[in-house]
């Protein structure tokens, strides 16, 4: 079993839809959780960062962490074609980046 699993996708939604992207993990010691967005032929860029359980909102994006279920989600409201990208979750026990574990990513297409 992989340490971090992510919905494989690809996922296609119409413009304006609410998108839910999810990751599950097996290491209960993970405390720090990130979501990265990666456009085609580009490097990943940080979208959201959360510590421990709870919700965090930033504009149209909401990150949710449920440590009891070892489950994290990223919600995108009013999705736009410009949101079309691969979304990677990443997590770690500490803030040392060499210990970050990435999910394989979910490719999202938002259709106009």
């Amino acid at each position, binding site marked *: 079993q*992989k340490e*971090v699993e992510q919905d494989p996708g690809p996922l296609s939604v119409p413009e304006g839809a609410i998108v839910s992207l999810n990751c599950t993990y097996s290491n209960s010691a993970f405390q*720090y959780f990130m979501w990265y967005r990666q456009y085609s*032929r*580009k*490097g*990943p*860029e*940080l979208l959201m*960062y959360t*510590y421990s359980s709870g919700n965090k909102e930033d504009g149209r994006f909401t990150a949710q962490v449920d440590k009891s279920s070892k489950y994290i989600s990223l919600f995108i409201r009013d999705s736009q074609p410009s949101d079309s990208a691969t979304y*990677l979750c990443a997590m770690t026990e500490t*803030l040392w*980046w*060499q210990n*970050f*574990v*990435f*999910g*394989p*990513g979910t*490719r999202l297409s938002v259709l106009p």
Partner: protein
Amino acid sequence: EADIYQTPRYLVIGTGKKITLECSQTMGHDKMYWYQQDPGMELHLIHYSYGVNSTEKGDLSSESTVSRIRTEHFPLTLESARPSHTSQYLCASSEWRGSGTEAFFGQGTRLTVV
């Protein structure tokens, strides 16, 4: 946009050749990283550095080597390229920001070994 640059963006090279992938950042970050990413697969850490003269191997076994002679520069070298080295290579650097840490990634180098 992050100030971290990778060259070349694309490289096609023959088996047995020596290659160096360049990575430079202008943000003064101490920590730098090299990841390997195959299509549809997760990023795998192959090398990292805490600062000048510091290099460590990551989780993924790699036949590459790195050096960190200057803070801003973290090149990755393959002494003898093989088709199994075909992949995308991503360089990143990170900083501590009080409320957390963020890594900035370069655009990547897509390497094809024929």
